[in-house]
Protein backbone atom coordinates (compact mmCIF):
# COMPACT_ATOMS: atom_id res chain seq x y z
CA UNK A 1 0.00 0.00 0.00
CA UNK A 2 2.76 2.43 0.94
CA UNK A 3 4.60 1.39 -2.21
CA UNK A 4 1.62 2.40 -4.28
CA UNK A 5 1.28 5.74 -2.53
CA UNK A 6 4.98 6.60 -2.71
CA UNK A 7 5.08 5.48 -6.33
CA UNK A 8 2.21 7.80 -7.17
CA UNK A 9 3.79 10.66 -5.22
CA UNK A 10 7.06 10.12 -7.05
CA UNK A 11 5.37 10.00 -10.45
CA UNK A 12 3.69 13.34 -9.80
CA UNK A 13 6.73 14.91 -8.12
CA UNK A 14 9.03 14.09 -11.03
CA UNK A 15 6.79 16.05 -13.32
CA UNK A 16 6.34 18.89 -10.86
CA UNK A 17 10.03 19.33 -10.01
CA UNK A 18 11.57 18.90 -13.48
CA UNK A 19 10.84 22.43 -14.82
CA UNK A 20 12.10 23.99 -11.59
CA UNK A 21 15.36 22.08 -11.98
CA UNK A 22 15.83 23.36 -15.52
CA UNK A 23 15.22 26.86 -14.18
CA UNK A 24 17.81 26.28 -11.46
CA UNK A 25 20.45 25.28 -14.03
CA UNK A 26 19.91 28.59 -15.82
CA UNK A 27 20.43 30.69 -12.69
CA UNK A 28 24.21 30.34 -12.20
CA UNK A 29 24.70 30.58 -15.96
CA UNK A 30 22.88 33.92 -16.08
CA UNK A 31 24.78 35.25 -13.06
CA UNK A 32 28.15 34.24 -14.50
CA UNK A 33 27.24 36.00 -17.74
CA UNK A 34 26.53 39.16 -15.73
CA UNK A 35 22.76 38.96 -16.23
CA UNK A 36 20.02 39.00 -13.62
CA UNK A 37 18.46 35.94 -15.22
CA UNK A 38 14.89 34.71 -15.24
CA UNK A 39 13.46 33.39 -11.95
CA UNK A 40 13.73 29.62 -11.50
CA UNK A 41 10.01 29.19 -12.15
CA UNK A 42 10.29 30.56 -15.69
CA UNK A 43 10.13 27.08 -17.33
CA UNK A 44 6.64 26.58 -15.79
CA UNK A 45 5.48 29.81 -17.40
CA UNK A 46 7.03 28.78 -20.72
CA UNK A 47 5.23 25.43 -20.65
CA UNK A 48 1.95 27.10 -19.70
CA UNK A 49 2.30 29.59 -22.52
CA UNK A 50 3.07 26.83 -25.04
CA UNK A 51 0.08 24.79 -23.86
CA UNK A 52 -2.27 27.68 -24.61
CA UNK A 53 -0.90 28.35 -28.05
CA UNK A 54 -2.23 26.87 -31.24
CA UNK A 55 -0.28 23.94 -32.61
CA UNK A 56 0.75 24.49 -36.23
CA UNK A 57 1.51 21.36 -38.22
CA UNK A 58 3.23 21.26 -41.59
CA UNK A 59 1.18 20.02 -44.59
CA UNK A 60 3.79 17.38 -45.32
CA UNK A 61 3.68 15.91 -41.81
CA UNK A 62 2.15 12.46 -41.28
CA UNK A 63 0.26 11.00 -38.27
CA UNK A 64 3.61 10.08 -36.78
CA UNK A 65 4.43 13.73 -36.31
CA UNK A 66 1.29 14.19 -34.21
CA UNK A 67 1.71 11.19 -31.93
CA UNK A 68 5.49 11.40 -31.47
CA UNK A 69 5.37 14.06 -28.70
CA UNK A 70 2.97 11.94 -26.65
CA UNK A 71 5.06 8.78 -27.12
CA UNK A 72 8.28 10.59 -26.28
CA UNK A 73 6.83 12.24 -23.20
CA UNK A 74 5.26 9.03 -21.89
CA UNK A 75 8.43 6.94 -22.43
CA UNK A 76 10.63 9.44 -20.61
CA UNK A 77 8.11 9.84 -17.80
CA UNK A 78 7.80 6.08 -17.45
CA UNK A 79 11.59 5.76 -17.34
CA UNK A 80 11.65 8.39 -14.60
CA UNK A 81 9.18 6.41 -12.49
CA UNK A 82 11.47 3.35 -12.53
CA UNK A 83 14.37 5.14 -10.88
CA UNK A 84 13.94 5.31 -7.09
CA UNK A 85 14.74 8.78 -5.81
CA UNK A 86 13.67 9.47 -2.22
CA UNK A 87 12.69 5.92 -1.24
CA UNK A 88 13.22 2.48 -2.78
CA UNK A 89 9.70 1.51 -1.68
CA UNK A 90 7.92 2.35 -4.92
CA UNK A 91 5.48 0.30 -6.90
CA UNK A 92 7.25 0.79 -10.25
CA UNK A 93 10.74 0.03 -8.99
CA UNK A 94 10.54 -3.79 -8.88
CA UNK A 95 8.76 -3.79 -12.26
CA UNK A 96 11.82 -2.95 -14.34
CA UNK A 97 15.58 -2.63 -14.08
CA UNK A 98 18.16 -0.19 -15.41
CA UNK A 99 18.41 -1.96 -18.76
CA UNK A 100 14.68 -1.41 -19.30
CA UNK A 101 15.27 2.24 -18.38
CA UNK A 102 17.88 2.55 -21.15
CA UNK A 103 15.45 0.89 -23.55
CA UNK A 104 12.71 3.39 -22.67
CA UNK A 105 15.05 6.31 -23.20
CA UNK A 106 16.09 4.73 -26.49
CA UNK A 107 12.43 4.51 -27.54
CA UNK A 108 11.95 8.20 -26.78
CA UNK A 109 15.02 9.06 -28.81
CA UNK A 110 13.87 6.88 -31.71
CA UNK A 111 10.52 8.66 -31.97
CA UNK A 112 12.09 12.11 -31.63
CA UNK A 113 14.44 11.28 -34.49
CA UNK A 114 11.59 9.92 -36.63
CA UNK A 115 9.54 13.06 -35.98
CA UNK A 116 12.54 15.17 -36.98
CA UNK A 117 12.72 13.31 -40.30
CA UNK A 118 8.96 13.28 -40.86
CA UNK A 119 8.36 16.82 -42.10
CA UNK A 120 11.16 16.54 -44.61
CA UNK A 121 12.89 19.79 -43.64
CA UNK A 122 16.68 19.80 -43.85
CA UNK A 123 17.19 20.87 -40.23
CA UNK A 124 15.03 18.06 -38.88
CA UNK A 125 16.98 15.48 -40.87
CA UNK A 126 20.29 16.99 -39.81
CA UNK A 127 19.26 16.96 -36.15
CA UNK A 128 18.05 13.35 -36.36
CA UNK A 129 21.22 12.18 -38.02
CA UNK A 130 23.35 13.89 -35.37
CA UNK A 131 21.19 12.55 -32.56
CA UNK A 132 21.63 9.01 -33.85
CA UNK A 133 25.37 9.62 -34.16
CA UNK A 134 25.52 10.68 -30.50
CA UNK A 135 23.28 7.80 -29.43
CA UNK A 136 25.31 5.17 -31.28
CA UNK A 137 28.18 5.74 -28.84
CA UNK A 138 26.32 7.18 -25.86
CA UNK A 139 23.95 4.28 -25.44
CA UNK A 140 26.63 1.54 -25.33
CA UNK A 141 28.56 3.73 -22.89
CA UNK A 142 25.56 4.00 -20.59
CA UNK A 143 24.91 0.25 -20.80
CA UNK A 144 28.58 -0.39 -20.02
CA UNK A 145 28.33 1.81 -16.91
CA UNK A 146 25.25 -0.15 -15.84
CA UNK A 147 27.03 -3.46 -16.46
CA UNK A 148 30.01 -2.49 -14.34
CA UNK A 149 27.74 -1.30 -11.52
CA UNK A 150 25.75 -4.53 -11.83
CA UNK A 151 28.92 -6.62 -11.57
CA UNK A 152 29.92 -4.64 -8.51
CA UNK A 153 26.56 -4.95 -6.75
CA UNK A 154 25.41 -8.30 -8.23
CA UNK A 155 22.07 -6.91 -9.45
CA UNK A 156 20.59 -4.80 -12.24
CA UNK A 157 17.66 -3.55 -10.18
CA UNK A 158 18.28 0.03 -8.98
CA UNK A 159 16.58 -0.56 -5.62
CA UNK A 160 18.81 -3.55 -4.81
CA UNK A 161 21.89 -1.67 -6.02
CA UNK A 162 21.14 1.20 -3.66
CA UNK A 163 20.53 -1.17 -0.78
CA UNK A 164 23.86 -2.88 -1.52
CA UNK A 165 25.80 0.38 -1.63
CA UNK A 166 24.26 1.85 1.53
CA UNK A 167 24.69 -1.49 3.28
CA UNK A 168 28.44 -0.80 3.42
CA UNK A 169 29.38 -3.78 1.25
CA UNK A 170 31.77 -1.70 -0.84
CA UNK A 171 34.36 0.87 0.14
CA UNK A 172 35.84 3.56 -2.08
CA UNK A 173 35.93 1.64 -5.34
CA UNK A 174 37.98 2.84 -8.29
CA UNK A 175 35.47 1.17 -10.58
CA UNK A 176 32.62 3.18 -9.09
CA UNK A 177 34.63 6.38 -9.55
CA UNK A 178 35.35 5.58 -13.20
CA UNK A 179 31.72 4.62 -13.74
CA UNK A 180 30.62 7.93 -12.20
CA UNK A 181 32.82 9.96 -14.55
CA UNK A 182 31.55 7.94 -17.53
CA UNK A 183 27.95 8.36 -16.38
CA UNK A 184 28.34 12.14 -16.05
CA UNK A 185 29.78 12.30 -19.58
CA UNK A 186 26.88 10.23 -20.93
CA UNK A 187 24.37 12.38 -19.03
CA UNK A 188 25.81 15.55 -20.56
CA UNK A 189 25.54 14.06 -24.04
CA UNK A 190 22.06 12.57 -23.59
CA UNK A 191 20.62 15.80 -22.30
CA UNK A 192 22.26 17.86 -25.01
CA UNK A 193 24.16 20.14 -22.64
CA UNK A 194 27.33 22.10 -23.43
CA UNK A 195 30.00 20.82 -24.66
CA UNK A 196 27.89 18.47 -26.82
CA UNK A 197 24.89 20.63 -27.66
CA UNK A 198 23.65 24.00 -26.46
CA UNK A 199 20.03 23.91 -25.28
CA UNK A 200 19.80 27.73 -25.24
CA UNK A 201 20.47 28.45 -28.91
CA UNK A 202 19.11 27.69 -32.34
CA UNK A 203 22.40 27.96 -34.17
CA UNK A 204 22.06 25.81 -37.27
CA UNK A 205 25.67 24.68 -37.40
CA UNK A 206 25.70 23.04 -34.02
CA UNK A 207 22.19 22.26 -32.77
CA UNK A 208 21.10 18.67 -32.29
CA UNK A 209 18.03 18.37 -30.10
CA UNK A 210 16.62 21.76 -31.04
CA UNK A 211 16.93 20.92 -34.73
CA UNK A 212 14.73 17.84 -34.35
CA UNK A 213 11.92 19.66 -32.57
CA UNK A 214 12.16 22.80 -34.71
CA UNK A 215 8.89 22.08 -36.52
CA UNK A 216 6.87 21.65 -33.35
CA UNK A 217 4.73 24.35 -31.79
CA UNK A 218 2.02 24.75 -29.18
CA UNK A 219 1.15 21.79 -26.98
CA UNK A 220 3.36 19.43 -29.01
CA UNK A 221 6.40 21.59 -28.32
CA UNK A 222 5.37 21.84 -24.66
CA UNK A 223 5.38 18.03 -24.43
CA UNK A 224 8.78 17.79 -26.13
CA UNK A 225 10.23 20.43 -23.81
CA UNK A 226 8.71 18.78 -20.76
CA UNK A 227 10.18 15.44 -21.85
CA UNK A 228 13.62 17.06 -22.07
CA UNK A 229 13.18 18.54 -18.56
CA UNK A 230 12.09 15.20 -17.10
CA UNK A 231 15.03 13.53 -18.82
CA UNK A 232 17.44 15.98 -17.17
CA UNK A 233 15.88 15.28 -13.78
CA UNK A 234 16.03 11.54 -14.45
CA UNK A 235 19.76 11.61 -15.22
CA UNK A 236 20.47 13.72 -12.15
CA UNK A 237 18.41 11.28 -10.08
CA UNK A 238 20.35 8.34 -11.52
CA UNK A 239 23.65 9.99 -10.56
CA UNK A 240 22.46 11.05 -7.11
CA UNK A 241 20.68 7.79 -6.26
CA UNK A 242 23.22 5.28 -7.55
CA UNK A 243 26.45 7.04 -6.63
CA UNK A 244 25.37 9.13 -3.61
CA UNK A 245 22.43 7.18 -2.16
CA UNK A 246 22.85 8.49 1.40
CA UNK A 247 19.68 9.80 2.97
CA UNK A 248 17.35 7.60 0.96
CA UNK A 249 14.54 5.74 2.69
CA UNK A 250 14.02 1.98 2.45
CA UNK A 251 11.01 -0.30 2.56
CA UNK A 252 10.49 -0.31 6.30
CA UNK A 253 11.33 3.32 7.00
CA UNK A 254 8.35 5.32 8.20
CA UNK A 255 7.01 8.61 6.96
CA UNK A 256 9.79 10.51 8.74
CA UNK A 257 12.41 8.52 6.84
CA UNK A 258 10.67 9.20 3.56
CA UNK A 259 10.43 12.92 4.36
CA UNK A 260 14.15 12.95 5.05
CA UNK A 261 14.76 11.07 1.80
CA UNK A 262 12.68 13.63 -0.05
CA UNK A 263 14.69 16.51 1.38
CA UNK A 264 17.97 14.73 0.63
CA UNK A 265 16.90 14.05 -2.95
CA UNK A 266 15.84 17.66 -3.58
CA UNK A 267 19.07 18.94 -2.04
CA UNK A 268 21.16 16.55 -4.16
CA UNK A 269 19.50 17.36 -7.49
CA UNK A 270 19.56 21.11 -6.77
CA UNK A 271 23.27 20.87 -6.00
CA UNK A 272 23.81 18.94 -9.23
CA UNK A 273 21.83 21.58 -11.15
CA UNK A 274 24.08 24.31 -9.74
CA UNK A 275 27.21 22.32 -10.60
CA UNK A 276 25.90 21.78 -14.14
CA UNK A 277 25.24 25.51 -14.51
CA UNK A 278 28.78 26.36 -13.41
CA UNK A 279 30.30 23.65 -15.59
CA UNK A 280 28.41 24.87 -18.65
CA UNK A 281 29.74 28.36 -18.08
CA UNK A 282 33.31 27.09 -17.86
CA UNK A 283 33.58 24.95 -20.99
CA UNK A 284 33.16 25.77 -24.65
CA UNK A 285 30.98 23.91 -27.10
CA UNK A 286 32.76 21.13 -28.95
CA UNK A 287 32.99 20.61 -32.69
CA UNK A 288 30.45 18.00 -33.80
CA UNK A 289 33.19 15.65 -34.96
CA UNK A 290 34.85 15.69 -31.56
CA UNK A 291 31.70 14.29 -29.92
CA UNK A 292 32.82 10.83 -30.99
CA UNK A 293 36.07 11.28 -29.05
CA UNK A 294 34.20 12.58 -25.99
CA UNK A 295 31.69 9.74 -25.88
CA UNK A 296 34.32 7.22 -26.92
CA UNK A 297 36.18 8.38 -23.81
CA UNK A 298 33.06 7.71 -21.73
CA UNK A 299 32.76 4.23 -23.25
CA UNK A 300 36.41 3.47 -22.52
CA UNK A 301 36.11 4.71 -18.93
CA UNK A 302 33.13 2.43 -18.41
CA UNK A 303 35.14 -0.41 -19.93
CA UNK A 304 38.05 0.37 -17.59
CA UNK A 305 35.64 0.36 -14.67
CA UNK A 306 34.70 -3.22 -15.56
CA UNK A 307 38.32 -4.23 -16.04
CA UNK A 308 39.30 -2.84 -12.65
CA UNK A 309 36.62 -4.87 -10.92
CA UNK A 310 38.70 -7.93 -11.77
CA UNK A 311 41.92 -6.43 -10.42
CA UNK A 312 40.45 -5.44 -7.08
CA UNK A 313 38.75 -8.84 -6.85
CA UNK A 314 35.39 -7.20 -6.23
CA UNK A 315 33.69 -9.69 -8.53
Amino acid at each position, binding site marked *: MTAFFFGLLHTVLVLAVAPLLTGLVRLPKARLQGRQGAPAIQPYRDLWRLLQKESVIADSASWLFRIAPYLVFVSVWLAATIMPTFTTDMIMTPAADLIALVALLGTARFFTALAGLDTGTPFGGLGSSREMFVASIGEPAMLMVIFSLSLLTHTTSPANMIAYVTGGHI*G*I*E*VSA*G*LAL*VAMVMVAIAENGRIPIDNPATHLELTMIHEAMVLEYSGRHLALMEAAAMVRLLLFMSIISSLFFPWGMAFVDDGVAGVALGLLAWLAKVSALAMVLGFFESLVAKMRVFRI*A*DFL*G*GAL*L*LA*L*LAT*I*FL*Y*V*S*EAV
Partner: protein
Amino acid sequence: MTSADQIVALGHVSYDMAHLIGAVILMMSFGLLYQRRLTAVIRLYSFQAMVLALAAAWQAFVQDAPHLYASALIALLFKGIAVPFALNWLVRRLGIHRTVETALGIGPTMIAGVGLVALSIVLVLPVTASAAAMTRENLALAMSVVLLGLLMMITRRNAVTQVVGFMSLENGLILAAVGARGMPLVVEISIAFSVLVAMALFGIFFFRIRERFDSLDIAYLETFRGERR
Protein backbone atom coordinates in the same frame (compact mmCIF):
# COMPACT_ATOMS: atom_id res chain seq x y z
CA MET B 1 37.57 0.06 19.08
CA THR B 2 40.70 -1.91 19.90
CA SER B 3 44.01 -1.03 18.31
CA ALA B 4 43.88 -4.16 16.14
CA ASP B 5 40.52 -3.04 14.75
CA GLN B 6 41.95 0.38 14.09
CA ILE B 7 44.79 -1.11 12.11
CA VAL B 8 42.37 -3.20 10.06
CA ALA B 9 40.10 -0.21 9.41
CA LEU B 10 43.06 2.01 8.51
CA GLY B 11 44.41 -0.75 6.27
CA HIS B 12 41.15 -0.82 4.36
CA VAL B 13 40.94 2.94 3.93
CA SER B 14 44.62 3.26 3.05
CA TYR B 15 44.18 0.56 0.45
CA ASP B 16 41.19 2.31 -1.10
CA MET B 17 42.89 5.70 -1.06
CA ALA B 18 46.14 4.46 -2.63
CA HIS B 19 44.06 2.70 -5.23
CA LEU B 20 42.02 5.84 -5.94
CA ILE B 21 45.07 8.12 -6.28
CA GLY B 22 46.65 5.58 -8.63
CA ALA B 23 43.48 5.55 -10.72
CA VAL B 24 43.54 9.36 -10.93
CA ILE B 25 47.12 9.17 -12.25
CA LEU B 26 46.00 6.60 -14.82
CA MET B 27 43.08 8.81 -15.86
CA MET B 28 45.54 11.66 -16.40
CA SER B 29 47.60 9.42 -18.66
CA PHE B 30 44.45 8.91 -20.72
CA GLY B 31 43.91 12.67 -20.60
CA LEU B 32 47.39 13.15 -22.07
CA LEU B 33 46.46 10.84 -24.93
CA TYR B 34 43.15 12.65 -25.47
CA GLN B 35 44.42 16.21 -25.27
CA ARG B 36 45.16 18.06 -28.52
CA ARG B 37 46.78 21.27 -27.36
CA LEU B 38 50.43 21.43 -26.41
CA THR B 39 50.05 23.81 -23.45
CA ALA B 40 47.19 21.71 -22.08
CA VAL B 41 49.32 18.57 -22.43
CA ILE B 42 52.09 20.17 -20.39
CA ARG B 43 49.63 21.41 -17.74
CA LEU B 44 48.07 17.96 -17.49
CA TYR B 45 51.51 16.42 -17.08
CA SER B 46 52.19 18.86 -14.26
CA PHE B 47 48.92 17.85 -12.54
CA GLN B 48 49.86 14.21 -12.96
CA ALA B 49 53.18 14.81 -11.23
CA MET B 50 51.40 16.63 -8.40
CA VAL B 51 48.97 13.74 -7.90
CA LEU B 52 52.00 11.44 -7.95
CA ALA B 53 53.48 13.54 -5.12
CA LEU B 54 50.20 13.05 -3.26
CA ALA B 55 50.43 9.28 -3.83
CA ALA B 56 53.98 9.24 -2.48
CA ALA B 57 52.97 11.30 0.56
CA TRP B 58 50.04 8.98 1.22
CA GLN B 59 52.33 5.93 1.03
CA ALA B 60 54.76 7.66 3.37
CA PHE B 61 51.94 8.18 5.85
CA VAL B 62 50.56 4.64 5.50
CA GLN B 63 53.89 2.80 5.54
CA ASP B 64 55.23 5.17 8.20
CA ALA B 65 58.28 5.73 6.01
CA PRO B 66 59.49 9.35 6.31
CA HIS B 67 61.91 9.11 3.38
CA LEU B 68 58.92 8.80 1.06
CA TYR B 69 57.97 12.36 2.03
CA ALA B 70 61.26 13.34 0.39
CA SER B 71 60.18 11.48 -2.75
CA ALA B 72 56.89 13.35 -2.67
CA LEU B 73 58.72 16.65 -2.38
CA ILE B 74 61.05 15.73 -5.25
CA ALA B 75 58.08 14.78 -7.43
CA LEU B 76 56.29 18.02 -6.57
CA LEU B 77 59.23 20.38 -7.06
CA PHE B 78 61.05 18.80 -9.99
CA LYS B 79 58.34 17.04 -11.95
CA GLY B 80 55.35 19.11 -10.95
CA ILE B 81 56.91 22.56 -11.27
CA ALA B 82 60.42 22.63 -12.76
CA VAL B 83 59.96 20.32 -15.75
CA PRO B 84 56.61 21.82 -16.93
CA PHE B 85 58.11 25.29 -16.52
CA ALA B 86 61.09 24.31 -18.66
CA LEU B 87 58.84 22.68 -21.28
CA ASN B 88 56.65 25.77 -21.47
CA TRP B 89 59.73 27.91 -21.85
CA LEU B 90 60.97 25.65 -24.65
CA VAL B 91 57.62 25.80 -26.45
CA ARG B 92 57.61 29.59 -26.27
CA ARG B 93 61.25 29.89 -27.16
CA LEU B 94 61.05 27.54 -30.14
CA GLY B 95 57.78 29.12 -31.30
CA ILE B 96 56.40 25.75 -32.31
CA HIS B 97 52.85 24.96 -33.32
CA ARG B 98 50.57 24.71 -30.31
CA THR B 99 48.49 21.82 -31.65
CA VAL B 100 49.55 18.24 -31.13
CA GLU B 101 50.14 16.32 -34.32
CA THR B 102 49.24 12.70 -33.94
CA ALA B 103 50.49 9.79 -36.00
CA LEU B 104 47.36 7.82 -35.06
CA GLY B 105 43.87 9.27 -34.49
CA ILE B 106 42.68 10.07 -30.96
CA GLY B 107 39.99 7.35 -31.02
CA PRO B 108 42.27 4.45 -32.05
CA THR B 109 44.90 5.68 -29.58
CA MET B 110 42.39 5.56 -26.72
CA ILE B 111 41.28 2.07 -27.74
CA ALA B 112 44.91 0.96 -27.87
CA GLY B 113 45.31 2.52 -24.41
CA VAL B 114 42.49 0.47 -22.92
CA GLY B 115 44.00 -2.60 -24.57
CA LEU B 116 47.33 -1.81 -22.88
CA VAL B 117 45.63 -1.42 -19.48
CA ALA B 118 44.00 -4.82 -19.97
CA LEU B 119 47.38 -6.23 -21.03
CA SER B 120 49.13 -4.91 -17.94
CA ILE B 121 46.44 -6.40 -15.71
CA VAL B 122 46.70 -9.76 -17.47
CA LEU B 123 50.49 -9.61 -17.03
CA VAL B 124 50.57 -8.45 -13.43
CA LEU B 125 47.88 -10.67 -11.92
CA PRO B 126 49.47 -14.12 -12.50
CA VAL B 127 52.97 -12.92 -11.59
CA THR B 128 51.90 -11.44 -8.25
CA ALA B 129 49.35 -14.08 -7.30
CA SER B 130 50.89 -14.47 -3.85
CA ALA B 131 51.30 -10.73 -3.16
CA ALA B 132 48.83 -8.63 -1.21
CA ALA B 133 45.98 -7.10 -3.19
CA MET B 134 47.30 -3.59 -2.51
CA THR B 135 50.64 -4.29 -4.17
CA ARG B 136 49.01 -6.07 -7.10
CA GLU B 137 46.65 -3.26 -7.86
CA ASN B 138 49.32 -0.63 -7.47
CA LEU B 139 51.59 -2.56 -9.82
CA ALA B 140 48.82 -3.00 -12.38
CA LEU B 141 48.08 0.74 -12.28
CA ALA B 142 51.75 1.71 -12.46
CA MET B 143 52.41 -0.62 -15.36
CA SER B 144 49.42 0.80 -17.21
CA VAL B 145 50.81 4.33 -16.75
CA VAL B 146 54.21 3.16 -18.07
CA LEU B 147 52.65 1.53 -21.13
CA LEU B 148 50.44 4.55 -21.83
CA GLY B 149 53.55 6.76 -21.66
CA LEU B 150 55.18 4.49 -24.25
CA LEU B 151 52.04 4.67 -26.39
CA MET B 152 52.16 8.46 -26.23
CA MET B 153 55.78 8.44 -27.39
CA ILE B 154 54.82 6.21 -30.32
CA THR B 155 51.72 8.08 -31.48
CA ARG B 156 52.99 11.67 -31.34
CA ARG B 157 54.93 13.32 -34.13
CA ASN B 158 56.16 16.32 -32.21
CA ALA B 159 59.34 15.91 -30.18
CA VAL B 160 57.99 17.91 -27.21
CA THR B 161 54.95 15.66 -26.77
CA GLN B 162 57.22 12.64 -27.05
CA VAL B 163 59.23 14.02 -24.17
CA VAL B 164 56.03 14.50 -22.15
CA GLY B 165 55.24 10.85 -22.91
CA PHE B 166 58.66 9.86 -21.59
CA MET B 167 58.17 11.93 -18.45
CA SER B 168 54.74 10.45 -17.78
CA LEU B 169 56.24 6.97 -18.27
CA GLU B 170 58.70 7.88 -15.56
CA ASN B 171 55.75 8.92 -13.34
CA GLY B 172 54.51 5.36 -13.69
CA LEU B 173 57.87 4.01 -12.55
CA ILE B 174 57.83 6.22 -9.45
CA LEU B 175 54.25 5.13 -8.73
CA ALA B 176 55.38 1.50 -8.78
CA ALA B 177 58.38 2.35 -6.61
CA VAL B 178 56.50 4.17 -3.85
CA GLY B 179 53.96 1.34 -3.63
CA ALA B 180 56.68 -1.24 -2.94
CA ARG B 181 58.09 -1.33 0.55
CA GLY B 182 61.75 -0.57 1.14
CA MET B 183 62.68 1.47 -1.91
CA PRO B 184 65.93 3.26 -1.01
CA LEU B 185 65.91 7.04 -1.21
CA VAL B 186 69.23 7.10 -3.06
CA VAL B 187 67.69 5.30 -6.01
CA GLU B 188 64.82 7.72 -6.10
CA ILE B 189 66.97 10.83 -5.95
CA SER B 190 69.20 9.51 -8.70
CA ILE B 191 66.13 8.82 -10.87
CA ALA B 192 64.86 12.35 -10.25
CA PHE B 193 68.20 13.86 -11.21
CA SER B 194 68.60 11.67 -14.26
CA VAL B 195 65.21 12.91 -15.41
CA LEU B 196 66.35 16.48 -14.98
CA VAL B 197 69.52 15.77 -16.91
CA ALA B 198 67.44 14.06 -19.62
CA MET B 199 65.26 17.15 -19.71
CA ALA B 200 68.28 19.37 -20.26
CA LEU B 201 69.57 17.05 -22.99
CA PHE B 202 66.18 17.01 -24.69
CA GLY B 203 66.21 20.80 -24.65
CA ILE B 204 69.54 20.91 -26.40
CA PHE B 205 68.33 18.31 -28.88
CA PHE B 206 65.23 20.36 -29.66
CA PHE B 207 67.35 23.33 -30.60
CA ARG B 208 69.68 21.16 -32.70
CA ILE B 209 66.79 19.47 -34.53
CA ARG B 210 65.08 22.76 -35.19
CA GLU B 211 68.28 24.36 -36.39
CA ARG B 212 68.79 21.60 -38.92
CA PHE B 213 65.25 20.91 -40.14
CA ASP B 214 63.31 24.06 -39.18
CA SER B 215 60.73 21.83 -37.47
CA LEU B 216 60.30 19.54 -34.49
CA ASP B 217 58.39 16.99 -36.52
CA ILE B 218 60.47 13.86 -36.13
CA ALA B 219 59.34 12.62 -39.57
CA TYR B 220 62.20 14.75 -40.91
CA LEU B 221 64.63 12.73 -38.84
CA GLU B 222 63.32 9.53 -40.40
CA THR B 223 63.93 10.73 -43.96
CA PHE B 224 67.32 12.04 -42.88
CA ARG B 225 68.27 8.60 -41.64
CA GLY B 226 67.00 7.08 -44.88
CA GLU B 227 64.20 5.09 -43.24
CA ARG B 228 61.54 6.25 -45.63
CA ARG B 229 61.82 5.78 -49.38
